[in-house]
């Protein structure tokens, strides 16, 4: 707890990190309340349109302009936050749900089953990031849950490997030996002693990965294999504005900007966390020129 306060204090003092924290908090909050603060919910959900306002440039009435249906882009981008949040959290949570058990069993139980699990993990890791997701998404077809599933299935091995490495080192720590000597059951050792001490880096990494998951999902949408229209998913908005770019640059510009800012927020925060976790870098943080 005091650590957390310390971290927050450090972040507060560094404008870059603070920006990260603010962006991420804002993203989460907006993602949660977006459906309730829309001024034009029909436009946002794609249930209304206004032919007379097609492709109007940004103005006070339409901050981000309108799209080819005359829908207010600001509202669509705002609602897109919700979808990005769902995708980001969904992908990361599902990946953890697969990755943690696999990594834990492979790392702690070991043996033939463990080796086999790690080999399977390695096979998945043989695909460059996103490639496997593309193949899976193309097979599953478009849809929100299919997108989340495709991304998670290509994502979990990273967590599995991380947990595996963590567990393999933790299981050799003296406190695990000490627990065995005391006669504690294997299951209890695994869940009470090994798992909690292996989880922190994975959970931290996973939290920060939400940004990357959003980025990848938007790439799938752009390639036409992500969520289907008229979902106001940001990547899809950019993609549908692609063909309009020379008449209406705003249609793809603002959703793209939303992606950039959100992912930037996660990455800034990630950088902060990385520095905070590393005590050596932590000292340097407050370094004064000598």
């Amino acid at each position: 707890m005091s650590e957390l306060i310390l971290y927050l204090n450090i972040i507060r003092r560094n404008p870059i990190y603070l920006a990260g924290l603010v962006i991420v908090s804002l993203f989460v909050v907006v993602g949660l309340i977006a459906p309730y603060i829309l001024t034009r919910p029909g436009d946002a959900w794609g249930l209304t349109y206004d032919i007379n306002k097609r492709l109007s440039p940004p103005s006070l009435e339409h901050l981000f302009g309108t799209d080819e249906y005359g829908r207010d882009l600001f509202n669509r981008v705002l609602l897109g936050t919700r979808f990005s949040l769902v995708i980001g959290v969904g992908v990361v949570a599902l990946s953890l749900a697969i990755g943690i058990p696999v990594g834990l069993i492979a790392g702690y139980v070991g043996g033939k089953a463990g080796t086999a699990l790690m080999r399977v993990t390695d096979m998945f890791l043989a695909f460059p990031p996103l490639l496997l997701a593309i193949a899976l998404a193309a097979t599953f077809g478009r849809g929100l849950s299919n997108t989340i599933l495709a991304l998670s299935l290509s994502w979990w091995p990273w967590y599995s490997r991380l947990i595996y490495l963590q567990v393999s080192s933790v299981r050799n720590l003296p406190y695990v030996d000490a627990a065995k000597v005391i006669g504690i059951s294997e299951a209890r050792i695994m869940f009470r002693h090994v798992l909690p001490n292996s989880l922190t880096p994975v959970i931290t990494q996973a939290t920060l990965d939400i940004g990357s998951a959003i980025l990848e999902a938007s790439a799938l949408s752009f390639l036409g294999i992500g969520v289907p229209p008229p979902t106001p998913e940001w990547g899809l908005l950019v993609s549908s504005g692609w063909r309009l770019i020379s008449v209406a640059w705003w249609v793809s510009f603002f959703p793209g900007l939303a992606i950039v800012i959100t992912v930037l927020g996660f990455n800034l925060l990630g950088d902060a966390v990385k520095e905070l976790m590393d005590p050596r870098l932590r000292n340097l943080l407050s370094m004064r020129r000598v």
Partner: protein
Amino acid sequence: GLPGRPTTTTPTTTPTQRMIIYASLSEMTTADPSTEFSNSVMWLPLVYEPLLWYDPITDKFIPALATNYSSSIDGLVWTFTIRRDAVFHDGTPVTSHAVKLSIERTIALGQGAAFIWDPVESIETPDNYTVVFRLKYPAALDKIAATAYGAYIFSPKVVDYAGASNLTDPKVAEWFNRGNEAGSGPYKMIKWDPENEVVLEKFTDWWGWKLPDYPMKSDNAPDIFKIKIIKDAVTQETLLLSGGVDIAQYVPLENIEQHQRNPNLQVVFKPSFQNLIMLINVKKPPLDNVLVRRAIAHAIPFEDIVTVARSGLARVASGPVPHGMWGHFDNLTFKYNLSLARELLTQAGYPSGINRKLILTYTAGDIYEARTADLIKASLSQIGIEIEIRPLSWEEQWALAQKGWEDPNAAQDLLIFYWWPDVVSPFTYLYNMFHNASKVFNLCYYENPEFNALIEEAVTLEGIDEARALQLYYMAQKILYEDVPAVPLWDMIDLRVARAGIGNLDKAINPAYPTVVFAQVLDVRG
């Protein structure tokens, strides 16, 4: 070279040449002038020539390899006089024998558009420059000889080039498909890389260049005409704007107005027989109720769809047969009227809307379908019908739709897709999509014996009693209007956008030869 490998001939030209790059939306696969029935039409009419060209707008014929022709009064004997100074690219003179052999090969192979020659009983060559056709039944052979597919004349020497025993030997087709040609047209093909580009070079010995008043030529025609395959409208536009291509087959329609104002660009429109239709699963509740179907039909904002999806470059459909085609009637449009739609739903027993999400599928990747679907969803939500849009690959969509014949509940509710004619007749529209013998494309699962009988009779009357046939087609379409197994949405208007400096573009485009740009009439200076 091998198929798929680009074959290149070193150009023998000087650097002062004029080149035009035409961006094509679709790649090509085959190149046999007798059987080609697909995208190679983009260049076939430049490299090969038929006997005549047809201009549907003025309803006139332009001489091609035939300088003139006549027909007997009963329409059963047609005589064509062949041009004396025409030579094939290999140097062989064009003669009546070459014409006879070319057309007979098409007939013998029986592929692609070979059916156009069905009326022909025999072809005779009284001398080197006269061809006589004898027909089994009366037909307009001039139109047939001018079709975009299946009417091209090529050098009989291809047998030797291919090392074949006769013209129908598959080796000849292979030779063509390897990227070889033996035409007589104004351009020679010098590169065949069917996935990326096809390059044509001016054939200097073409007879047309020497005729001062020939309408199908220009003194400033490009020396090189390159067809570049760029499968996407946005990219075509980008390249057009940045100078990478000169003529775009397609650009995003939203930008057309802007391009029209752009002094560096020109835009040319033309009609098209392609239309978009929404098929309704008439066997899946609640769509089995005709009132519900009518409600849906009246809740579709046709005008808005045309504006948004096609930026106005389409006409609201009136029946499944598109505008401008024989068999089209103007009073079959559904009125967009939400209160009527709500009323119909109430009558059908759904006063507060339908309590199930209807699944609407379309072919993924098509922006016009996507936007149409989007607006249909938006509009139907106004009358309490929720739509779930599912963009699918064509094969998935079709596979899903096929299930409907066995189990309508397993199939989609609504399906939108394009139709365009193979034979230009209302019959192809009405039979394929609505006759219950057509399981492949009747994806509304509509079964109506009365309707079937009407169109079956109409098609047989087409050549004998046009008026009666028209009447029957009207009755059939009226039935569809009442039963609403489908909602025809819009009929397409086609267009080309090009660099402003290219003269005669409108002349180079002819609706009878879709996608073709007749390069020889283009006027390119500087």
